[in-house]
């Protein structure tokens, strides 16, 4: 499987999935009309990575505003991680937000409370 790179725009986040290191990064706003067009390749990549061997998977999210269509897609992604975690796989999410953007922190916390794998919500200066 190859790395997955999506260039971000105003309405879609930049995606960088590195197969060798097992690190998937998503950065920016996410409000495309059809979020699954964007997120399906990400879901496919994660499924392939988790199926390939037993190496850890880390998500590093610096997402800002998400429309509800993106939120629904992200739930599918985090559910994949939860299933892997329940099966004993090492998975973790770090969600970075700017300290003055409490709305993002609240959004990330709402995601976090539904999962049992390591999920950190971290304030980070620009």
């Amino acid at each position: 499987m190859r790395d997955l790179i999506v260039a971000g725009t105003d309405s879609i986040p930049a995606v960088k999935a590195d197969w060798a290191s097992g690190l998937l990064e998503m950065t920016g706003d996410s409000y495309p009309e059809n979020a699954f067009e964007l997120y399906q390749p990400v879901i496919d990549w994660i499924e392939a990575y988790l199926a390939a061997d037993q190496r850890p998977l880390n998500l590093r999210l610096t997402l800002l505003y998400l429309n509800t269509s993106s939120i629904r897609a992200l739930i599918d992604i985090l559910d994949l991680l939860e299933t892997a975690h329940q099966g004993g796989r090492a998975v973790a999410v770090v969600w970075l937000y700017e300290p003055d953007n409490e709305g993002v922190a609240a959004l990330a916390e709402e995601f976090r409370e539904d999962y049992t794998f390591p999920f950190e919500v971290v304030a980070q200066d620009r």
Partner: protein
Amino acid sequence: MKRIDVQSLRDVFIEQQILLCFNGPFSATLIEEIGHALRLHLESLQAPRPAVGDVFSAYIELTQNIRHYTTRKGLTCADAQATLVVSHGTEGGYVVSAGNVVELADGEGLAGRIDALNLLDAAALKAAYKTQLRQPRDPDAKTGAGLGLIDLARKAREPLKYTLVPLDAGRAFFSLHVAI
């Protein structure tokens, strides 16, 4: 040449404290462009960051909902248009309003859902939101699958308001007002 009555439009804008208004068919690109302008405009007015975020969010959900609806129903011409208004609200707040032509039965269904959401407190809205998030997703669905209205109700500082005005041929004009 027809002469547009700019001054009376201006009077309406001032009287209703309108910051931004659009009427016409929305494309995905236009939603982005206007959204970008809306953010910059609110920032230039020194609006607090959470308010900018919530106004933008209400704007995106409302306009994308209308886009999904008009596309799904195959509406054309004037029926495919949407009207969007962002205005000043009470106590330094903002109101995002959007309206479009719907089938009367759809408008009544929407009104019923909003009435039901307006009975819920913050905790019950959060529970409804989480329940909706966990609904199985239709693989062909492009939308947030019913999350949008609940999200709007959670972000709003007052109960959601709507108007449903019947038109001819089983149609109606539906508008929704979200106070941020």
